[in-house]
């Protein structure tokens, strides 16, 4: 299959801009939903219903003075936020948005997602270290320890999905869930333990509450980005929201049927003309976005529901509970798949 450089570039440009835009939507959504949960209005002054608030935020970031600590490491201090944004953005290139609509269909897509996630930690650690501040350093170290601890369980959850699907390509995994009216075939039903583990570790990997120890305000001021200001802080901010958004995409893709419309086989049987049409693609995209919206909402919901972990609880959960469960789940799934295949 020959893909022209031009169309790929246009697609990539679209994806990057969609991600940037979605970050601003998420900022708005988080503040409004938080306000709703805490029984207060939230931002409502900039534009109708405060919808232009994120743009005002961005403007503020750009206008602010970029302050750099005196004894900091200039190069790495500037590198860290860029690294965060670039990596967060590049994961988006692997997500299948609809049938056949994916920027990079690589045969080891899932592993690529894991690999890129694991590199994210450099941004936080380096940002924390280069600031030359104890709060930043502690935040950076915490994040490195946390992400490495939870990456193991995340990897094992992904492996259980790969075992079921028999492929590591993301579109392949989505297509594998198409059986059973495309609802019961979802991996969330076939592999519920793996699903829960993955969602929990996704929270930990994105440093979202209740795993937001790297930036715990009460202990560390702002954590790894204490010493950042202006657009550099804005980039950390942006990366956090993009990561959150991308994590929702990955959860949906791996466990909730990705772009599949619920009851898609029934729908296609009823209206055969739909197969392969542009409308189906749009429907699939819409279904994906709805599911993603739910998980994006879940992130906010959890944030205002669970208190933050203590550090020892975090490590305890990661190593003594999640890891053994994930390991056992992988073995059970592997045996189950082997038995299933030998019967059918």
């Amino acid at each position: 299959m020959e893909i022209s450089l031009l169309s790929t570039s246009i697609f990539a440009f679209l994806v990057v801009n969609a991600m940037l835009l979605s970050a601003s939507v998420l900022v708005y959504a988080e503040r409004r939903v938080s306000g709703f949960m805490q029984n207060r209005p939230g931002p409502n002054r900039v534009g109708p219903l405060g919808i232009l608030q994120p743009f005002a935020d961005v403007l503020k970031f750009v206008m602010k003075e970029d302050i750099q600590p005196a004894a900091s490491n200039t190069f790495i201090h500037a590198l860290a936020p860029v690294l965060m944004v670039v990596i967060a953005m590049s994961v988006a290139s692997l997500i299948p948005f609809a049938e056949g609509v994916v920027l990079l269909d690589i045969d080891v897509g899932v592993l690529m997602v894991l690999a890129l996630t694991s590199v994210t930690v450099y941004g936080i650690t380096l940002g924390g270290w280069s600031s030359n501040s104890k709060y930043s350093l502690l935040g950076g170290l915490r994040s490195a320890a946390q992400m490495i601890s939870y990456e193991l369980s995340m990897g094992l959850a992904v492996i259980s999905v790969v075992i079921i699907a028999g492929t590591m390509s993301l579109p392949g995994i989505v297509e594998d869930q198409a059986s059973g009216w495309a609802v019961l075939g979802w991996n969330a039903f076939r592999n519920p333990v793996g699903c829960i583990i993955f969602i929990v570790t996704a929270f930990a990997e994105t440093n979202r509450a209740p795993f937001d120890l790297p930036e715990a305000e009460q202990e560390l001021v702002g954590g790894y980005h204490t010493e950042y200001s202006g657009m550099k802080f804005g980039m950390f901010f942006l990366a956090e929201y993009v990561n959150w958004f991308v994590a929702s995409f990955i959860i949906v893709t791996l466990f909730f049927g990705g772009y599949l419309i619920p009851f898609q086989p029934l729908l296609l049987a009823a209206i055969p003309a739909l197969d392969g049409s542009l409308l189906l693609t749009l429907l699939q995209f819409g279904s994906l976005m709805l599911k993603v919206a739910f998980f994006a909402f879940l992130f906010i919901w959890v944030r205002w529901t669970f208190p933050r972990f203590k550090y020892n609880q975090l490590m305890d959960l990661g190593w003594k509970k999640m890891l053994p469960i994930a390991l056992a789940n992988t073995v059970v799934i592997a045996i189950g798949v082997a038995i299933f295949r030998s019967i059918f």
Partner: protein
Amino acid sequence: MALASVTFFALALIAIASAVGVLIARSPIYSALSLVLNLLSVAGLYLTMNASFIGVIQILVYAGAIMVLVLFVIMLLNLDALPSPRSIGWGPILGFVLGIGLLAQLLYVMLTSFGISLEAAEPVTTAMAVENGSANTLGQILFTEYALHLQVAAILLLAATVGAVMLAQRRFA
């Protein structure tokens, strides 16, 4: 294809430059980061050669896990950059000369050996490269031909873990 060779040479240049950076950087952080860059560019080289699985594993294992731990240790120990060398003793100079000598020998040997062609090996096509680099092929080989090595390597890792925990954690005396 021009684009492929441009990518290759760019990645190769970055890999070599960052490898040199690992050696000459005076600050341990810069040294470690150069190594990360080196590993990433080598992973990129694998990807351009269609060995996507190995390329991604290279990022995941080396850049994503091992080097993070190395960085972690450097930060925890808060290692300072080495001072610039004022004077060099005869030891390093001798080592340098011998090292250059060894390198020259190896380079000479390599240069004279560019013409070697293996009779058994067929020319590698893209399809073959994709096939050989895939997780499926690797898995089959690992669990048949090298199954024993896989198990012994598991014992190696277990021994290393047990030893590290024992030496670091045991309350002696």
